[in-house]
């Protein structure tokens, strides 16, 4: 049952992400990104990582994609199809990606081909919170400093100089 559910969510994620990188309309690519990220959130849910799935929907679909859409709006992205969105080197890029997929896929199959997982319900906010404040306190604090630095950096980058 979980295998079937995961396969469906994974197939949706794969097809949507293919559209993200090949769509000729940039706004459509951003909207396909919503589908891909939502399907990956579904994969997290099947793996019993409910908290991560919810955070994924909140942060990725709710915040990051909205930011991307705002950036598209502010950079006057055209809504008509643009063949020039993909460069002429896309065949080489496809070859590089295919070779990388082959190498990584072979390695993964050789290393973990026979392993099984039995997802148990341990993905509650309580389990993750216990881990954060028991084992990962220092990385958590460093991350909050990093978020503050990113905030200040974004403000410093986007403030207009007086002479402009």
């Amino acid at each position, binding site marked *: 049952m979980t*295998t079937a559910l995961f396969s469906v969510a994974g197939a949706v*994620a794969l097809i949507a992400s293919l559209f993200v990188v090949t769509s000729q309309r940039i706004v459509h690519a951003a909207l396909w990104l919503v589908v891909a990220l939502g399907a990956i959130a579904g994969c997290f849910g099947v793996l019993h*990582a409910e908290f991560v799935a919810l955070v994924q929907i909140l942060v990725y679909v709710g915040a990051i994609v909205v930011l*991307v859409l705002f950036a598209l709006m502010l*950079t006057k992205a055209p809504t008509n199809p643009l063949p020039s969105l993909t460069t002429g080197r896309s065949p080489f890029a496809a070859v*590089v990606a295919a070779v990388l997929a082959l190498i990584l896929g072979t390695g993964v199959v050789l290393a*973990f081909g026979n392993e099984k997982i039995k*997802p148990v319900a341990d993905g509650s906010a309580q389990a993750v919170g216990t881990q954060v404040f028991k*084992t990962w306190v220092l990385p958590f604090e460093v991350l909050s400093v990093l978020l503050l630095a990113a905030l200040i950096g974004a403000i410093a*980058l986007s403030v207009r100089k007086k002479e402009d």
Partner: protein
Amino acid sequence: MPLILPLLLAVVLFCIGVYGVLARRNVITLLMSFELMLNAVNLNLVAFDAWRINDATGQTLAVFVITLAAAEIGLGLAIVLLLFRGHGHVDADAARDLAEQDELVEQEKAT
């Protein structure tokens, strides 16, 4: 459920992201491809957590990576807007302000 299923999905998603980074021209589509690659990493973390560890360590790290991705996209889009304000385009191939001077001179000679 076989462990190989989420791992292979992560591999393919990562490679789709690599293709997007290499083949796309608009900076915002590059950022979208980065998001796909980060999601593949998250899928790996959650899958390995469900496989052997089972104490939510991988899920905690996945939440950390999501936070990092939020910081990254915020800064990245600020840089993109700055590029658009200065140059009037968001074309990654045409933003050559940091290219080496010799290379630029050679290109001007060629054109």
